[in-house]
């Protein structure tokens, strides 16, 4: 069964606005990761947050994690047209070599 689910499925904003995407999952995790996929390309790793962390920043990205609610959010500030892509959260299992499960993704369109 699916572990992570993103919300919304699709998001359209104007350049300069902030974009927030949410991810909910069902079972305990060690890490949660966010990836970006540009059209026709492979996924690119953005940020990893451990289960004992609540917030992490990387450039214009801010990720929060609430393990009590089993949810995470990805905030992209001051969005650019180049941020147009699909964004996926990925959650892991109990051991290092367990499979990582990707959510269905949020499709973000940033309008210039």
């Amino acid at each position, binding site marked *: 069964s699916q572990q992570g689910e993103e919300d919304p499925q699709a998001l359209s904003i104007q350049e300069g606005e902030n974009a927030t995407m949410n991810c909910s999952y069902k079972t305990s995790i060690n890490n949660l990761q966010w*990836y970006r996929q540009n059209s*026709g390309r492979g996924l*690119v790793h953005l940020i*990893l947050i451990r289960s004992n962390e609540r917030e992490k920043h990387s450039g214009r990205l801010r990720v929060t994690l609430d393990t009590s609610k089993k949810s995470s959010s990805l905030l992209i500030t001051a969005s650019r047209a180049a941020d147009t892509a699909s964004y996926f959260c990925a959650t892991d299992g109990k*051991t*290092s070599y*367990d*499979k*990582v499960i990707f959510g269905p993704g949020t499709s973000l369109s940033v309008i210039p």
Partner: protein
Amino acid sequence: DTAVSQTPKYLVTQMGNDKSIKCEQNLGHDTMYWYKQDSKKFLKIMFSYNNKELIINETVPNRFSPKSPDKAHLNLHINSLELGDSAVYFCASSNGGGRKPQHFGDGTRLSIL
């Protein structure tokens, strides 16, 4: 200096044929993966190898057979292709299993006629 490279990028073939997709990584990673992404962009793990050993084998038809000749290569052979096999197949690698960031290739777009 591509990190994870897959060939071919596009594969168009007829139902019933056998085809292979190759993947190579030059990152020195110990774990490699095959994923299938359907038309709704849902990404599902198929196989994972760690140091040439199969560690994840999802519920995948046995028409799909992965092979890892060494740590840097993971190939996927598909027998008797079916219409439902049409998808984008991604190879990825990481160092230390799925908990670590994965590096993806740009995918192989498989279309079955």
